[in-house]
């Protein structure tokens, strides 16, 4: 066992997912199978190998700090489920 149902519950909490009991059980079983397969990587000695996070060597890509977009507030808010006075509206937090 690589991962227990309790761990699945914890990871779901981190990922902001609410899982049903059925999903928890299924994911525990499926993730175990996948993680078991991933054990394969331990056959390789990777000590001293630089990790590759990106294939092209990147430095920061800077551009001039100029405004290029027009104000699209209204258009952007059109996609929002709830708005008020030009803002996104969420349930009360305090």
């Amino acid at each position: 066992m690589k991962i227990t149902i309790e761990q699945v519950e914890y990871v779901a909490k981190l990922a902001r997912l609410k899982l049903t009991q059925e999903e928890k059980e299924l994911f525990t079983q499926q993730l175990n199978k996948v993680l078991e397969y991933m054990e394969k990587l331990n056959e390789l000695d990777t000590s001293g190998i630089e990790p590759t996070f990106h294939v092209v060597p990147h430095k920061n890509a800077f551009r001039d700090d100029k405004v290029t977009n027009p104000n699209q507030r209204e258009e952007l808010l059109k996609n929002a489920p709830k708005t008020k006075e030009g803002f996104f509206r969420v349930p009360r937090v305090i």
Partner: protein
Amino acid sequence: MKEILELTIEDLKRAYLRGDLDPVELTELFLKWIKRIDRKIGAFLTLDEEGAIEQAKAAKRRLENDEPGLLVGVPLAIKDNICTRGLLTTCASKILYNFVPPYDATVVEKLKAQGAIILGKTNMDEFAMGSSTENSAFKITRNPWDLERVPGGSSGGSAAALASRECVVALGSDTGGSIRQPASFCGVVGLKPTYGRVSRFGLVAFASSLDQIGPMAKNVKDCALLLEVIAGHDPRDSTSLPIPFEEFTKCLEEDPSGLRVGIPKEYFIPGLDEEIRKSLQEAFEVLEDLGLELKEISLPHTEYAVATYYIICTSEASSNLARYDGVRYGLREEREDLLEMYLETRSKGFGPEVKRRIMLGTFSLSAGYYDAYYKKASQVRTLIKRDFEEAFRVCDLIITPTSPTPAFKIGEKIDDPLQMYLSDIFTIPANLAGLPALSLPCGFTRDGLPIGMQLIGRPCDEGTLLKVGYAFQKLTDFHLRRPPLLDEELKGL
């Protein structure tokens, strides 16, 4: 109608300039055909009839004013994870069921600037996570060569649309094979460009260090032309490569003889379908006739690619998909409490495969597991990249099967995530190493299912792949065959 549906970009342009064809008439014809055939295929999520006719009228004006553009009057389809201004873009997810982008992706701007006609948006696995398009929250897409089979994925809608001649060219996206595998399953051509060749601005992010938008077409020449239009540096994508414009169509006619082709022995394993093995052997003979020099090479870390990929892509996805919280766009499950709203929204909005990947990625990145999973995978990624660097010292391109099997049956792998993941085994390494890779048809099984061959190139060397693919298509006719279903349907029209 039959002949018109087969027209290439070049044919279309010639017909327009001669005045034999009109973009509006052509668009109407394609829309009529889509309405007929797509009831059986299910390639499109959104059909934009009004917009397409508008764009066709604009194309007509461009022709009249003698300023056509490279894609004037070319009807095309776009995968539904690429933003189109004013046109629904859902990623085949419930969480974005109503999202209308307020801007065009850079690639879409480029298509429009060249006079293209956007017919609509194509089906895909939700957030491009899958290899069969079965993970779409909205519909099943069927393989035009056999309606019981999947079109591949995640760009299954674009590939099926091409195979059923619902468009002339299409855009897909490829994170671990999502352009090439469906192209091979549907008997069409698909190219994953070098990472950074095509702007990702406006592509809904799945795994940012792997995602690339790429062209899909019925033949290599159209594919090259579409790449020419969409490639190029974009200041709005910080990972976009600052390389000069290349006329990919110009290099097609160059003689490929003398090029050295590496055949990696790790790709011709016992699990490989025998008919695919045979078809590749025959393709190698064609390549030898063309004067290419074939040699066996080794990519020793190939067997670790799937595990590496599924750690890296899920980790990046878990971070990228954190943005779907029901606040700024898409689905919201209304609750009194903010945290409850997040939880309910995400749980209702994401499908099972997306949840599974978010879970796996969150786990790989979580405290105590990061070194064993994410970091380890990123180190193995270095080894896989080095394999290719070594190989390209002795060869100019690498040829492999695109997929270990032809199109599988709908439902066959959907309950077994690991089996589904393993179907990407031959396409994943090119994404991990950021290399360009082209899939093109190289045969058919006895049951009439298409077989695809993959050409992998050095970074930024799409030109060589297209040149070899083009020469191959001059000597073969696999790309000219069409699903028998089309002729039956055409009779009924």
